[in-house]
């Protein structure tokens, strides 16, 4: 865990302590379990977003993909009697395909990621609404998938705490993503391409493939989150389901140390960022703040967090600058800059 993650953890604990102090119901098992469930679902698509942000891209269609794939999943298993495992696989494949399309448009057609995924946001939302004729998709009376429901939306009692399975899913996803990003060759390539694509190419990295892979991973994980969310809400109004979720994901990634310029960020940070966002949401509910202020509270906290981070970084830079002169005397560069 790096310094940035640690300060984020401290921030979460402080906010939690303040909320508990004002309203002790924050610590009730039911409240914590529900908040954890939200963290589980939001954490998965925030990690998805982080992959794209680390290579220097952006993915704005997360919310719309969650709506479209959620609607399709429920339609497949409820109305078309498709075996849920098959439907599960099909939806994940759909997410991967969306990622492939986005990645290809960005790298081969040289369209800016913002534009590609903004179009995606509009297209998938429209498709979801058209497909259901704007009606709410849900489980009909008596429709029941006990195994699937238990797996996705169930909770298991661990030492008296009802642990939501979405949290287990997040834990597994985060663990794999952590190893992939921080320990594997592919992870190294992701950071290299995000930092300086030209230098990465000069080192023999096929940067286009790396970028496309990042979008594919993002699409697949988003599809997974879409299924969990669909099974949790059990009914989907395609016009609003998942809206603004891409912004939650971007916010969590930025809180977690990702730079929108690419090349930075950690998985632990992204998970902690998600936790902070959900605790804030919870805070609004518990402290009796009008829920209309929900987004305003979140925006303010993120802004303060980023400003604080900036301040700390400047201070660190100032101290290292002071320490530098002695260090570099031995190797004073005789730069011949601008000599001609």
């Amino acid at each position: 865990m790096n310094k940035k993650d640690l300060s984020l953890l401290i921030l979460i604990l402080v906010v939690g302590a303040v909320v508990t102090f004002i309203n002790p119901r924050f610590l009730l098992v039911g409240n914590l379990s529900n908040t954890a469930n939200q963290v589980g679902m939001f954490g998965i698509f925030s990690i998805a977003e982080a992959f794209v942000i680390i290579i220097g891209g952006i993915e704005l269609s997360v919310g719309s993909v969650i709506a479209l794939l959620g609607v399709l999943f429920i339609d497949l298993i409820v109305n078309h009697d498709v075996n849920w495992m098959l439907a599960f696989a099909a939806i994940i494949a759909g997410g991967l395909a969306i990622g492939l399309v986005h990645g290809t448009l960005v790298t081969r057609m040289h369209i800016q990621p913002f534009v590609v995924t903004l179009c995606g946001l509009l297209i998938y939302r429209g498709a979801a609404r058209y497909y259901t004729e704007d009606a709410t998709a849900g489980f009909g009376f008596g429709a029941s998938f006990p195994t699937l429901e238990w797996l996705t939306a169930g909770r298991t009692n661990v030492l008296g705490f009802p642990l939501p399975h979405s949290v287990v899913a997040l834990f597994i996803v985060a663990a794999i993503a952590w190893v992939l990003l921080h320990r594997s060759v592919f992870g190294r390539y992701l950071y290299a391409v995000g930092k300086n694509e030209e230098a990465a190419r000069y080192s023999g990295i096929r940067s286009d493939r790396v970028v496309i892979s990042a979008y594919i991973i993002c699409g697949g994980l988003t599809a997974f989150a879409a299924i969990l969310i669909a099974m949790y809400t059990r009914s989907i109004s395609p016009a609003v389901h998942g809206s603004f979720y891409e912004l939650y994901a971007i916010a969590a990634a930025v809180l977690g140390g990702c730079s929108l310029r690419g090349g930075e960020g950690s998985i632990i940070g992204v998970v902690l960022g998600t936790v902070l966002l959900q605790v804030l949401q919870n805070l609004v509910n518990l402290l009796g703040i009008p829920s209309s202020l929900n987004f305003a509270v979140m925006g303010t906290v993120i802004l303060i967090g980023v400003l604080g981070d900036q301040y700390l970084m400047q201070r660190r830079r100032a101290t290292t600058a002071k320490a530098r002169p002695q260090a570099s005397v031995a190797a004073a560069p005789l730069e011949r800059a601008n000599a001609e």
Partner: protein
Amino acid sequence: MPEPFLELVDISKTYPGVVALDHVDLKVAPGEVIALIGENGAGKSTLMRVLGGVVEPSGGLIRVDGVERGSFTVAEAIQAGIAFVHQELNLFDNLDVAGNVFIGREPVHGGPLRLINRQALYAKVRPLLERLGADFEPDAPLAELSLAQRQLVEIMKALSLDARLVIMDEPTSSLTLTETDRLMRVIAGLKADGVSIIFITHRLNEVMQCADRAVVLRDGRMVGALTRAELSPAAMIRLMIGRDLKSLYVPPAAPPGEAVLDIVQAVTDTYPERAVSLSVRRGEILGLAGLVGSGRTELARAIFGVDPLRGGAIRLDGTPIRIASPRAAIEHGIYLVPEDRKSSGLLLDFSIAENISLPDLSSYLRLWLVNTARETENARRQRERLKIRAPDVETAVGSLSGGNQQKVVLAKWLSMRPKVLIFDEPTRGIDVGAKQEIYDMLRRLTDAGVAVLMISSDMEEVIGVSDRIAVMHEGAISGFLDRSQFSEHNVLQLAVGHTI
């Protein structure tokens, strides 16, 4: 010739470790056309930047109309009537011609909104277009103009500021012959109007054609001036060369072997009508000399697969190969140490170890994951071998000096199995000590059987390090030199397109 209105007296400019200008004097009279010539790195551009107010001199004074001052700001230079037509033109692609000429000085309608008076704007630009005989309209979008036409826009901008002196830095380097002719006519026209011109050029025939005087710089010093009557290519070259070159040469342990890399009629994007052929032999350092812009870097980029090859073939050990990407080049054992190490050679935020392992990460695997212990171990070995001065291999490369950064780029390739190493300006911006260490490493590499192609604009380096020199001129090889033929004179002759 009328009295000079502008004088540079005893101008010096030093950078840490380098003297760029060493007590230079220059006088400019109205209507005078001065050619400023000299090798790469002689200080020509620095001198002109002093005149344009971009660079502050370390010593000396500037006298304009009898008024003395220590230095100029850009605004003061413009006020004194000095206009600079930059090598990379400072124009706005998204505006039209008139908008560019009067940027920041647009005529406006009265009123609080200060709307641009387009009619007045175009009316002011039209006479300038006629004066230069330009073949485009004031409302032509700049994006649609050729490079030569853009240059005219820059000159119009200068004239609209009532310039008395127009400085042009290699104005013809990217122009076609007819465009060059037209520029020469424009220069003659300006001269007739009493405007002075200083132009930096490598093309001696242009100097012959239009200069009243040629001023020659070498190593930051003014080594001579030739009047119109004294001008001749031979006289100019004689002044441009003739410094003492320290001999750095270390002969190879064995005579060079077979050709490893053959470039056959290679065509790049920059010079689509020219083709380059050369071969690099096992165990030799082939120096690739030429003026800046002669197409050497473009050739290197094409061999390394960064840019596509537009024609011709590449053979490695006699077998034709196709290189579509740097990855492909690397798999064939062809590595490039690029010209700009900060943007293409290194990831400045990555550590030394991470930079070194990057092209070859798959050989550091343990169970699919990067074995950082092996990575660190190899980086430490390379640090010893190349004497990279850094506290540890975990240090971010961005905090190292230029010489040590270059050694990291080198270490990256030496950890693998180089067959052909291409260096583009291997020691630019590097201190003397590190330079020598890099030269030593080059020789050790060739003695181990590597073929080295070294692009360099530093005459001392090309002559002192190479076993053989190929010289490029405007996208083609103008000649090869063996060690017995090595001389500054010969390299320069070929570089400016003459034969020896």
